[in-house]
């Protein structure tokens, strides 16, 4: 009889992540950013010179750790399996717009909950956008939206993303001149890496997903995954209070363009529902063989590069007109993909 995981695994993963999110800020990660999946993928894009904003360029060991931690956990649990082929290029495009939406808002769903747990009220419009986005995605799921079936691939396919993560780790340690590493704004590398490995492995075991949580509640009133968000938010809040990082009303590195915040995370909620998981879940899945999620990871990397090259990313000073145009384009693209990939 196969063994099933009780929900405390999801709760534990969310809780541990929440604690580490706050601790990493104390240790040097940017305030109010903590461990943001998309922001850190953006930093990797910068380090690899896919954009040239030096301030946001670093090979984030947390991301490397998530991928490698999920890879090891998947191997140990015998769940590492190379699969793919369910509309990979559509997933790439959707994920690029997910990254752009998150960077307009300034945060993936994890950072949004982290911002709320730090007392930032501007994140509330993001939460609303995320819920509405997931709800739109669910409407299309209910009307038959599907990206097709994956099939098993040769093992080498499954190893591409873990080897890429290993390559990033080597670059981070060797510091060759062709990568740019901002010396500021990060916790000690070894601590970030170990935390990334732990959260990555827990994420693989628990299947924690920040958009899946909301989707499952809308779709079937299932609060299983939501326990992860609950654990994350409560322990991140407690930790912030303990470390003196809870500043009600403050929004360091956030902006007050509420419409942009709403639309940014609407794209994230909608897109993540279409591809079956939030940026964190995609990164974890990419770590243990899912090449479709690997395409999502690469889509976010390229989207993050575009976000800065085309001046789409939000800044504390505000949001550009380019960003609003990009989000409208994103909504149109999602509408086309959502309505042309339905099976009855």
């Amino acid at each position: 009889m196969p063994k099933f995981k009780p929900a405390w695994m999801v709760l534990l993963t969310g809780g541990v992540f929440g604690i580490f999110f706050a601790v990493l800020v104390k240790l040097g990660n940017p305030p109010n950013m903590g461990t943001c999946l998309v922001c850190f993928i953006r930093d990797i894009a910068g380090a690899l010179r896919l954009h040239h904003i030096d301030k946001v360029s670093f090979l984030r060991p947390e991301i490397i750790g998530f991928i490698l931690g999920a890879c090891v956990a998947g191997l140990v649990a015998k769940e590492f399996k190379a699969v793919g082929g369910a509309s990979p290029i559509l997933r790439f495009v959707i994920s690029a717009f997910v990254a752009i939406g998150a960077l307009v808002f300034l945060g993936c769903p994890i950072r949004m909950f982290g911002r709320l747990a730090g007392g930032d009220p501007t994140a509330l419009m993001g939460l609303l956008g995320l819920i509405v986005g997931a709800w739109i995605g669910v409407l299309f799921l209910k009307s038959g939206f599907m990206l097709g079936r994956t099939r098993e691939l040769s093992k080498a396919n499954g190893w591409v993303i873990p080897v890429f993560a290993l390559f990033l780790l080597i670059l981070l340690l060797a510091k060759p001149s062709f990568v740019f590493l901002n010396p500021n704004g990060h916790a000690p590398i070894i601590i970030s890496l170990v935390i990334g490995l732990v959260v990555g492995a827990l994420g693989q075991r628990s299947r924690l997903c920040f958009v899946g949580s909301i989707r499952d509640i809308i779709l079937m009133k299932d609060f299983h995954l939501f326990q992860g968000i609950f654990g994350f938010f409560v322990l991140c809040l407690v930790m912030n209070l303990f470390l003196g990082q809870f500043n009600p009303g403050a929004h360091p590195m956030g902006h007050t363009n509420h419409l942009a915040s709403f639309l940014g995370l609407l794209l994230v909620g909608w897109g993540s529902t279409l591809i079956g998981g939030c940026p964190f879940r995609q990164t974890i899945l990419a770590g243990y063989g899912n090449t479709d999620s690997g395409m999502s990871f690469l889509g976010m990397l390229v989207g993050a590069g575009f976000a800065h090259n085309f001046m789409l990313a939000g800044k504390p000073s505000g949001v550009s007109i380019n960003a609003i145009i990009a989000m409208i384009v994103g909504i149109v693209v999602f509408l086309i993909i959502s309505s042309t990939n339905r099976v009855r």
Partner: protein
Amino acid sequence: MAKEIDVRGLSCPQPVLLTKKAIDAEEKEIMVIADDIVARDNVKRLAENSGYDVKIEEKEADFVLNIIKK
């Protein structure tokens, strides 16, 4: 005759969504074939929460979930 649903290769949340359609149609017996542990666990949780008994058999690389109304 059990209603048969093949969810192999489908990603989250399609396996659950297809099973839910059969549950909403008040099928008494449903057989779900899955090739993924996440899909297996999610379908099992949904069926049990909806008042069904679930028995799982492993057939080569697949899982066969026999879902029967209590």
